[in-house]
């Protein structure tokens, strides 16, 4: 029973971290049509920024605020300024993806060049804990889950009930139509980069605080699973990313508990392949005409 509870509780915790990042990643792709492969490195940069700006603070609330703000700024710079410059010159699809890979490598190795190959660690803290049927959950983990839920609700409400959300969904569906309706696609995309970056930074600092230490490759390592969650749910669909994250989080923990911890990562990819074989568009995405990256 304890093991089953552990699978569920820590599956949800893993999913919470994945969901925040995956929603940010897929939301940005959905609106801007840009496959941002620098997302993981931006996530790392946000952890570094928070660590440096707050003096290694382990206060989760301060960390989240600084992380989200850092992520928003960095993401806007990357997306609107750098990637935007290439877009205005007519770069498309594969070219833009390569630009984001270049940005990712520059950020990662730039951080390593500044910091060195060593990890950075937070001071040890003793969290308050709560016991749920034999499973011990820390206050930090519980906060992460709650923050993830609130963030997902906020994103959902933004997209469904606000004009901005409507503009984002419209831009994602048909750019020329939104122009005709008086909505500025450029401004909408800028907001998407900001929001995506904020979620990226939030995910990053929660990941860094949760693990207690980080390095210049932390975000890149995490990005692969995060992207898998986004693809699983249907790329461009924030609600799909939430479901994808939950599925991967729980199934990874289940694989570790039932089979072997070595199968944790493999389980995530088996799920992804299995779902895509049955539904190539992902769990929630509508099956539409092939979507061209950065048309």
């Amino acid at each position, binding site marked *: 029973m304890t093991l089953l509870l552990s699978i569920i509780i820590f599956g949800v915790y893993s999913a919470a971290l994945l969901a925040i990042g995956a929603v940010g990643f897929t939301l940005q792709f959905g609106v801007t049509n840009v496959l941002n492969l620098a997302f993981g490195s931006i996530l790392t940069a946000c952890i570094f920024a928070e660590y440096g700006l707050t003096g290694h603070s382990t206060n989760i609330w301060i960390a989240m605020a600084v992380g989200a703000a850092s992520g928003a700024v960095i993401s806007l710079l990357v997306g609107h300024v750098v990637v935007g410059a290439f877009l205005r010159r007519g770069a498309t699809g594969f070219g833009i993806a390569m630009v984001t890979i270049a940005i990712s490598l520059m950020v990662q190795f730039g951080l390593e060049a500044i910091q060195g*190959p060593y990890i950075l660690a937070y001071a040890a803290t003793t969290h308050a804990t709560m016991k749920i049927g034999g499973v011990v959950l820390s206050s930090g983990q519980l906060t992460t889950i709650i923050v993830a839920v609130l963030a997902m609700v906020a994103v959902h409400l933004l997209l469904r009930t606000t004009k901005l959300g409507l503009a984002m969904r419209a831009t994602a569906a048909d750019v020329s139509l939104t122009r005709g309706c008086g909505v500025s696609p450029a401004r909408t995309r800028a907001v998407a980069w900001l929001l995506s970056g904020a979620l990226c930074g939030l995910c990053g600092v929660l990941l860094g605080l*949760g693990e207690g230490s980080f390095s210049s490759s932390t975000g890149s390592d995490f990005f692969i699973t995060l992207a898998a969650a986004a693809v699983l749910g249907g790329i461009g669909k924030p609600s799909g990313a939430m479901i994808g994250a939950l599925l991967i989080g729980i199934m990874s923990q289940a694989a570790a*508990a039932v089979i072997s911890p070595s199968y944790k990562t493999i389980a995530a990819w088996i799920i992804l392949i299995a779902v895509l074989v049955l539904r190539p568009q992902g769990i929630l995405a509508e099956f539409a005409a092939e979507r061209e990256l950065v048309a």
Partner: protein
Amino acid sequence: MSGMKHRTWRAAAPGARLALVGGLVGLALAACGTSSPSGGSPSAGGSSTLEVAAFSPFTGPNAPYGYFQYTGCVSAVRVINAAGGVLGHHLTCTIVDNRGEPADAVPAANNMLASSPHLVGIVDGDSGLMSATVPLFNQAHIPDLSAGGDVQFDTSSYPYFWRTTPGDDVAGYTLAAYVKFGTGFTRVAAVFGNDQAAQGNVPGLVSGARHLGLNIVDKEAIALDQTTYETEVQRILAAHPQVIVTESDPQTAGVLLGNLKQAGWTGPIVGTSGTLGVDYDKAAIAALGQAAYEAHFVRIIQYAQQSGAAWQTWKTALLASGKLVKNPAGDETAIYAELPYDHTMMIALAMLASRSAAPATFNPYIQKITQGSTVVHTFGQAKAALAAGKTIDYVGVTGQISFDKYHNSGGLWAAENPVTNLPVKLVSAQDIATAEGH
């Protein structure tokens, strides 16, 4: 194809001919200037600087091990050059970053061998890369003095491969011996990362546990760099171990140890030599707090001296290396820095003893300098003894070296405080032999 004219040599523009000839001449000169390490090695009496390569990861998660290699090498080179060098040559220590992955290590090795005409030796220590790179070094006839633990090399047939640290399987037996004779506990949980280096300890631990009557109640091969190991921790604790034996990379360890603490584990944790390093300490302290880390964690590692002429010389050279090394004060007792120090010394002494800087000539002397009649502990002592016509037995910082027919030499082991690196308890050769079933 109509309309295309194929120009002959005679018809080609003079400028093009000149460029072609110039290019060929340049290539020929370059070929003459670049000699292969095996065929065109530096000879005694020349004035070129000889190169010892620290072939290790200097970027990526295993970068701390690379800097250990460089620290030891640089410190040894300082001592050697201060004593006049070797056969009229000064030595230098160069960094060759293999990034810790075979896919990167092989090109890095090939590039190093092709572009280093004065390369006389290699010091390395990454278990996971040895099977890919040791054959290359041997093919190039460059002595490779290794601290890597790949068990395949317990019975090595490579004449240019030398190792002064036991294979990971012996490390595993030592873990079992410490648990049995050092703690008295019998119920063991083995929690190792699923990478090759960490898993190399497991067969020896399992076999040793069987010989010693220990019960491995849980064995986990954990995926690296996960956000949580709570489920794995539940599996471990459900087996009711008395002691946990572990190795993983620093970030994995930080999460694992934090999750163990959160779940209420207050028992002893025994780490392997793979847990040595500033990064592992940082991550573990972040997870447990320094007091708890020092109280509950010991590291089983090859023991090196902390006094005597060899250690004093090493310490002096280390502290004098200043900006060249990352953590001089902290590395005084770091075995992974002391090993390459002795390895570099041995390369230099083998050259002196053979009176040749040609690797193919001095390679057999790497063993001979540990078998002579005059015990020496420093480069200065050795140089004086050789100059007086004596044979030497170099006993350096890491103690007596005794190569078997496979070019392997074991050593002393100890359970050390993870922060101070000072021994808490020695693990005797007898206990290790009992674990091995002898």
